[in-house]
């Protein structure tokens, strides 16, 4: 009889060189040879990130995600929603990062027993058990140098003896008995612009992916409300489970009992219909002539709709055609590098000064005898704008109920480039 194994059967962690360095089985042991199918797919993929997320094998399905150069390969045996598995794997990655500071092979190997305890606690019979970092931390204490020392002296353990308070309450994301001497609540509004700009500089698509990340350290059971100057911008939102949806629907106010510590309160999406402002422009001239081994290369950047704020940390990168041998360019500011093997050009610009626009000019040489390249390189731009949410989203006020003390409050805004691409 075949086991009707619902949910996740096993997990394998595979490093960049293709070695399995950890395996965990929630049901019977699945031989690691099942990963051979994954390795085949890995071999076929031109780039590490091109491995298909779902790989069928004769008896199992392998669902994998690539994070921090580690493949998390989940083995499932029957019909399981793939998103369920992927979301769970993300949660595993987040938990590792939360516990060990980084999610790396070394960190995982260094903490292998904690990793094992965590995995056991996160999934029971393939059903997710405790995935909230608040709850996990009550069950299994994160390793710290101090605790290790204390444990060795006193003989106490990493494992909590008490049932985590949040596990079954109506607010499973928050533990009780939280105490701080400094009560503070900080919110970061971070917006990323994804855009495709065509050759002539007009916008093909542009959208904003925004998030509000919170760092809340408040004593007791605070009940917060957050209101916006222009809530109508938010028509496509995903909330943390703590947000009271009905109140949002009715009044467009975020009302919630926050988790303790860092969490993502909401993410939102402002789509192209709403006219997304494009903060930078690029003038480019990359041309090759038939029969010549030299090509011309000119890039100039300038600010566009920045609402008077400075565009900083600008980084331009572009994958030049395969036929390019080398680049001989001079930047008006910053530094550039060109990797002749990967053909990746990157230019660290820094801040854009509207009075003196940064430019990168010079020539690129083709391999001798190479014909004029067919493909046009795409230019990828990264930048940051402090103190600005490009969508115009503004927090109106933040209020706290349920507790008597006065907390420190703060809101920060930032705009970044997401996948910001200029075609040439």
């Amino acid at each position: 009889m075949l086991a009707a194994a619902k949910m996740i059967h096993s997990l394998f962690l595979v490093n960049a060189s293709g070695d399995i360095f950890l395996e965990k089985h929630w049901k019977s042991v699945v031989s690691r040879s099942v990963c051979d199918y994954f390795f085949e797919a890995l071999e076929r993929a031109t780039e590490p990130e091109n491995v298909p997320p779902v790989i069928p094998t004769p008896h199992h399905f392998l669902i994998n995600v690539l994070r921090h150069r580690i493949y998390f390969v989940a083995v499932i045996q029957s019909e399981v929603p793939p998103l369920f598995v992927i979301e769970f794997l993300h949660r595993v990655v987040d938990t590792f990062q939360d516990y060990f500071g980084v999610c790396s092979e070394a960190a995982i190997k260094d903490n292998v027993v904690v990793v094992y305890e965590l995995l056991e606690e996160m999934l029971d019979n393939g059903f997710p058990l405790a995935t909230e970092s608040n709850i996990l931390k009550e069950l299994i204490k994160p390793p710290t140098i101090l605790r290790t020392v204390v444990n060795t002296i006193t003989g106490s353990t990493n494992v909590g003896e008490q049932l985590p308070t949040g596990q079954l309450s109506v607010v499973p994301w928050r533990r009780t008995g939280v105490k701080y001497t400094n009560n503070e609540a900080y919110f970061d509004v971070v917006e990323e612009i994804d855009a495709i700009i065509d050759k002539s500089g007009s916008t093909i698509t542009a959208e904003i992916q925004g998030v509000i990340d919170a760092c809340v350290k408040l004593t007791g059971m605070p009940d917060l409300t957050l209101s916006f100057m222009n809530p109508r911008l938010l028509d496509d939102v995903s909330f943390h489970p703590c947000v009271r949806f009905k109140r949002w629907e009715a009044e467009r106010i975020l009302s919630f009992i926050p988790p303790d510590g860092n969490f993502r309160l909401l993410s939102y999406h402002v789509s192209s219909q709403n006219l997304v402002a494009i903060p930078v422009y690029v003038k480019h001239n990359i041309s090759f002539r038939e029969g010549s081994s030299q090509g011309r290369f000119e890039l100039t950047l300038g600010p566009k709709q920045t609402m008077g704020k400075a565009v900083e940390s600008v980084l331009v990168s572009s994958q030049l055609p395969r036929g390019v041998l080398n680049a001989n360019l001079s930047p008006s500011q910053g530094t550039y590098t060109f990797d002749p093997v990967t053909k990746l050009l990157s230019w660290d610009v820094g801040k854009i000064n509207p009075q003196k626009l940064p430019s990168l000019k010079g020539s690129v040489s083709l391999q001798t005898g190479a014909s004029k390249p067919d493909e046009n390189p795409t230019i990828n731009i990264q930048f940051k704008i402090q103190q600005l949410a490009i969508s115009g989203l503004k927090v109106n006020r933040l209020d706290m109920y349920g507790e008597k003390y006065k907390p420190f409050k703060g809101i920060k805004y930032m705009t970044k480039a997401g996948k910001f691409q200029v075609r040439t």
Partner: protein
Amino acid sequence: MTDSKYFTTTKKGEIFELKAELNSDKKEKKKEAVKKVIASMTVGKDVSALFPDVVNCMQTDNLELKKLVYLYLMNYAKSQPDMAIMAVNTFVKDCEDPNPLIRALAVRTMGCIRVDKITEYLCEPLRKCLKDEDPYVRKTAAVCVAKLHDINAQLVEDQGFLDTLKDLISDSNPMVVANAVAALSEIAESHPNSNLLDLNPQTINKLLTALNECTEWGQIFILDCLANYMPRDDRESQSICERVTPRLSHANSAVVLSAVKVLMKFMEMLPKDLDYYGTLLKKLAPPLVTLLSAEPELQYVALRNINLIVQKRPEILKHEMKVFFVKYNDPIYVKLEKLDIMIRLASQANIAQVLAELKEYATEVDVDFVRKAVRAIGRCAIKVEQSAERCVSTLLDLIQTKVNYVVQEAIVVIKDIFRKYPNKYESVIATLCENLDSLDEPEARAAMIWIVGEYAERIDNADELLESFLEGFHDESTQVQLQLLTAIVKLFLKKPTETQELVQQVLSLATQDSDNPDLRDRGYIYWRLLSTDPVAAKEVVLAEKPLISEETDLIEPTLLEELICHIGTLASVYHKPPSAFVEGSRGVQHKRIPARAGSGESAESSDVGQSGPSEAPPAVIPSQGDLLGDLLNLDLAPPTATVPSVQPSMQMGAMDLLGGGLDSLLGGDIGGSPSMGAGLGVAPAAMPTALGIAPAVGGVGMPTGSYVAPKTVWLPAMKAKGLEISGTFARRGGIIQMDLTLTNKAMSVMTDFAIQFNRNSFGLAPAGPLQVLTPLSPNQTIDVSLPLSTSGPVMKMEPLNNLQVAVKNNIDVFYFSCQYPLSLIFVEDGKMERQVFLATWKDIPNDNEAQFQIKDIHLNSDAASNKLQGSNIFTIAKRTVEGQDMLYQSVKLTNGIWVLAEMRIQTGNPNYTLSIKCRAPEVCQFVFLCYELVLKN
């Protein structure tokens, strides 16, 4: 100090050393040793030899040590069942511990130890834990029932755990409810008929309440469970939708997609003119778009599902084209999916934008992606007629780039464009011919050859071009060889004078020098056709071809409906029904969208399309390998070959055209493989005679359920060396019978009777031998009843109800054909649900509706309806409008096809109007004949 220290090995055996440490008196040392064991286990080392030593550490009040030992136990208990018993006592004790964490841990671990002997001891503690005062223990115990069921299903049933689990659905704690639902769903999967999750409005209400309060994972379980519920009416449907909609704003994408599944399914029940319906449609778009800004793996799953959603309800995302534009650093699997959806959303309104994007993609670096982009341009041309010209010119631009693989792809899609818009863009042929030499891929070569053959009369040097391919004939792939053969035959039929030599050459290459049976067969067929009847050859080979349609790459509707019910699952990622690939899916039930279950049973099996020839979608290109299609030289695959159901029956049928079908049925060669057909290997001159059977013999018997037509003579004595056969058909209580009268009009005794049918439209076949036990003396007559089954081989006949029969006796084999009334295959359970009827009626395109007049009937509507019922034509509803009775009726055929009818009877008017709708419109005519027959007798 980190855990990596546990990996250091000593020179002396590692196991030996660990053993010593595990048995140490010092607590701390023990714990460290267990940690080392666990560390070894994580990297896949076998430390099972330490089993007794580790288990000895179990009895401890140190929770961490206990957990570690449990971890170890779960891994190795199976390999050491006898040892594992040692642990039982501690488990039982821990289940009574005052700390709920320990109680839960114990019950959870016990369930993971897959050892029969232990499971027996588990029952009592589990029973207690299921009723524990602490919800944390209850929710853990709920999952444990599922684990136990997996190990020993009978035990779980005997102990009554399933009922306890059902009770937990009403638990006060939402997490307990969610886990109970999850456990029940898992158990139900291996118990398809158990009614475990008996959903009724009360339980649904409880689930919806729990939905708001449980964790994200619990929400997924509950939503997936809700998706299996059939609301009673549209109001309930709407209220569930309203309560599920807030889940669309959840941060967890799996919750969002499960909610989308519930909504997509239930909105089917809502009236389209309802305001709420429109609101819901609008609400679905943003969360789907948001999924596309997530990590690429999530995007991929989302895109596969969106692909289904846009096929089902294109209106949801019709304004969101831009979010599917490809970013150059998307992973390739995301790029390809986006491209596919772009084409599905392409319309006249956005085609300019789409084409500009596609042209951009065609200059990218990734070859696979570039190819798909070029193909996409072709698909746009076929989908959006107004854009065809622009697409063609874009393709020509791309051909000018001379990039080899771009040129080849472009030629393949231009061939498809010709198939869609014949005689419109032939001016580009000259440009295509210039690139002839650069084509090295079989598909491109085949496409080019097809074009040359198809337009041979306009290409001056067509013969030279084709001849140039002929030189390396045997090195070509089959695809190219077949195409070349057909193209040269076309050329010959168009320009017979100059090309006789060429056609002879290719025919001999195909028939004499090739080992490929397909190629040989086709060669023989052409040869025979050309040599016997060139006019017929022209009609066949140069026949007007059905237009290619964009529908070819759509998922077949019944499959699509099933997949919509499986949104978010692996099935939706692979676009295959769950039964097709999931191992151990004993319990996979075919899920249906409510209210649209109209296609009834035919849709319930995943192999729709094999059930009968009439399932073939009209005007869609036959799938590759279909010989009939090949004859019409339609064998090039459609743009993306996704016509899901290959039709083996059609292929078989085509073989029969070659004859031998009947011969092989009766002759001594019955043992031979039927698919080989008899005449396949022989030279054209030896064409067997089966084609010559005259279907004209015999009358048309038209009996009904109660009324059976008189027998008519099917085989006159003079044609059968003295044997006369007359007969009729009857359906009695669900059993189909062929009533025969055999008369011996010859001078000698007849013995050794046997009967066989040729393949026919509905798979009729004798269910037993022909019972003529005594020899038939001269002038003797005998009546025989032959029971028939409908499980025989299927082949579409012309007319549909034609049946070719062979009867053998000691003298010879005789062939005749007769026609049965279609009511013979109307099944007794053909009464459709009212609601299903309504939805199905709407769902079947109006093109499939056929209208008939039944004249001179003097019955009132009730009498008519009673009479029809006798022949399994069921009246579902009756409506009277202005003195006109409207009867709504349904009929189900043995192969699962439903026929829906509306009969209008005007008082005082002897002429009835009958409208028939069926997904397989070719049966309508025959159904009408049955109506007429039944009502007139």
